[in-house]
């Protein structure tokens, strides 16, 4: 990947290659999309002071607890926001830390989730991620 050095990829959720389906070694994003996401992540981090993180992959049931577990593994969970997307299950989970939740109320997250799922429904993963990051960042900034 072109931007390989710019992203911290963990295989935490990797269940190992599935025997029945050939799993692509690449992520679902092209390098151009990765660049856009990285720019949006950087802007969101800078504007809000939080650490935004994107996970795209399968989430074990219950998905909410799994996403919360991933969120807890971040460096500073209290100041972090995790956007976990499972395209296979068609589930999106936004997890905010204790301090981040003060400036990002659940209603604002729900609004961002709504607009993200609208983009995902059209097959636009990267566009939805970028839109969601911008919405969350704007919301946190205005508080």
């Amino acid at each position: 990947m072109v931007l390989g050095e710019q992203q911290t990829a963990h295989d935490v959720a990797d269940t190992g290659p599935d025997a029945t389906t050939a799993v692509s070694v690449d992520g679902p994003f092209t390098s151009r999309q990765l660049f856009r996401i990285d720019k949006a992540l950087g802007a969101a981090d800078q504007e809000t002071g939080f650490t935004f993180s994107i996970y795209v992959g399968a989430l074990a049931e219950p998905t909410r607890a799994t996403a919360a577990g991933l969120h807890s593994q971040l460096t500073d969970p209290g100041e972090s926001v995790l956007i976990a997307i499972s395209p296979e299950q068609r589930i999106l989970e936004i997890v905010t830390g204790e301090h981040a939740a003060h400036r990002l109320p659940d209603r604002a997250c729900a609004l961002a989730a709504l607009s993200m799922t609208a983009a995902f429904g059209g097959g636009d993963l990267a566009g939805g991620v970028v839109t969601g990051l911008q919405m969350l960042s704007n919301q946190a900034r205005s508080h």
Partner: protein
Amino acid sequence: MTITQTVLVYVVIPAAIAGVLALFVFGAGARRAPRYRPGRPFAFAPVWFVSATAKNQANTDHVALPAGEERPALPAGASAAPAAAQPATKKGGARGTW
């Protein structure tokens, strides 16, 4: 016009034009990288990233494992299981489906 000329003008030339158009339409699609389509299986490796410029870079000792140390492998089926050992803090957020 001879039969050869007729065939050349009315069959071979239109066929060549149609072939070029088909190449434009389907050739571009074949070259494109696989992408996610709703409802189709998602055959990509899971990715998880943070911003390159994030303050995480200052805490790389926390993110990266110390040299020589290996994180125990997850048991099969327990994909990204909730971390039970982590202290439970209050978390907010939202969920969505599509």
